[in-house]
């Protein structure tokens, strides 16, 4: 369970005094819930996730995980990064077992747990490979297995599939949904892909930018497993897309001046057969 109340964060900038990245952000993620965070680039999604992970400190407000204030990184909240972050000097098996080693498990114990997780992401054949010998999708699977091997309460995922091609992405989405159903982990998931967010989540939080805030919340009430054919899903996807188009227009105007205007229909509702809509 994650509770975020009135969290703010600003960065010092050379010319201006302060750049407010996040302002008064509040929301909660219930135990076992799958929540997605979408928003224009630079709105502070990663910053927020890094604060929950304990890599960065909140300037104002309180972040609590399972009733305890976040003080630093911990094995109860594991992050899956966009660029996998695997250790190139370790094999797949040792990468996945790394966290267990820190926990003091014997070699036998940690390898058997690691093997189980590697099997769950269908990579049993590749345990002796080094990360550079794997494809992008495989690396991301290893990163997921590494996170799950720690058996954390919470998974924090920062655009984990963004660097992958569409086919690999949709396969990994299915795998992730399966893992989530099976393990009942609490997941906070950042993405630019609205379809991905709607397909996976119980709830989608849309952020606005400058300063970063939670703008709107969408609850996905469709039956699990979510399917693209479900009109509820489709309707939600277009509503979120619309919401974000407004936000994006704001960003572009800010960056390029007032004369630049995006035509609304550029961001029209994606057709059912397209592979999702990114921003």
């Amino acid at each position, binding site marked *: 369970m994650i509770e975020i109340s009135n969290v703010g964060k600003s960065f010092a900038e050379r010319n201006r005094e302060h750049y407010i990245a996040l302002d008064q952000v509040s929301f909660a993620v219930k135990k076992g819930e799958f929540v997605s965070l979408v928003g224009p680039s630079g709105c502070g999604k990663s910053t927020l996730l890094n604060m929950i*992970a304990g890599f960065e400190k909140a300037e104002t407000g309180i972040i609590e995980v399972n009733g305890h204030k976040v003080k630093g990184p911990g*094995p109860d909240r594991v*992050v899956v990064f966009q660029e996998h972050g695997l250790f190139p*000097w370790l094999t797949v098996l040792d990468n996945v077992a790394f*966290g267990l080693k*820190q926990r003091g498990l014997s070699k036998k114990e940690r390898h058997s747990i690691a093997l189980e997780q590697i099997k769950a992401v269908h990579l049993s054949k590749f345990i002796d490979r*080094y990360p*550079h010998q794997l494809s992008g999708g495989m690396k991301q699977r290893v990163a997921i297995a590494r996170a799950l091997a*720690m058996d954390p309460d919470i998974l924090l995922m920062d655009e984990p599939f963004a660097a992958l091609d569409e086919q690999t992405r949709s396969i990994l989405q299915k795998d992730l949904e399966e893992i989530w159903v099976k393990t009942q982990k609490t997941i906070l998931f950042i993405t630019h892909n609205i379809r991905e967010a709607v397909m996976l989540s119980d709830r989608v939080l849309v952020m606005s930018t400058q300063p970063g805030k939670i703008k709107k919340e969408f609850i996905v009430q469709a039956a699990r497993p979510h399917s693209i054919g479900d009109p509820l899903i489709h309707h939600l996807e277009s509503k979120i897309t619309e919401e974000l188009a407004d936000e994006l227009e704001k960003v572009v105007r800010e960056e390029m001046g007032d004369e630049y205007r995006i035509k609304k229909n550029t961001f029209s509702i994606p057709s059912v057969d397209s592979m999702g809509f990114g921003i």
Partner: protein
Amino acid sequence: MIAWDLGYRYLHWGWKFPSPLQTYQAFVDGFTQGHLWGSISASLRRLLISFVISIAIGTTLGFLFARFRFFDQTFGFLVVALQTVPSIAWLPFAIIWFGLNDTAVIFITTIGATWTMSMASRTGIMNISTLHIRAAQMMGTGNGFRMFFQVMIPAAFPHLMTGIRVAWAFAWRALVAGELVAKGVGLGQMLQDSRDIGDTASILCVVIIIAIIGTISDHLCFKRLEDKIMLRFGYIK
């Protein structure tokens, strides 16, 4: 080889520079009856001791420089300056502190290799990606020894390896220079002793041995090791 022999015969170098045959003879004598083996092993022993010490100190210093800004801006700056001082310049100090003995030679050899190693390890550790540090932290390495040995050292490996190779070359140089002056058994001392009796064949013989050991150790040990590991971890494709 032929040019060398012709030069010896017709330019009348006499005893100032040996002929190929004399050099060959010096090799054979040195290895069969002389103390060439003893000298080589004594020198290598000193070299290895200094080398291990300087790699350990250098890596630790580099870590401290990379980690603590204040330390880097004060002592780090000093190290950059010290790096430019040829280590043989420390010999007078070494002799005053330790006497004309092994310790003095080991001291200047260590100094010769430490600074460059510390700079290499500083660069290596500063270049570790935040992503790897964060991944390690969230998996519970903490920020102490486990982080250092299990993450920082292997992550900084390419830079460390470069540092090690340069440190080895520097140590080798400093060693021979130190031995020229110090008493005892060693290749440097052998150069000096041979000069005293005008045995140019032995001098050349030792010079050749120094070059061969230097090359072999770099190419066959460090370079091989480096290439193998770099390839394995995908640092090079």
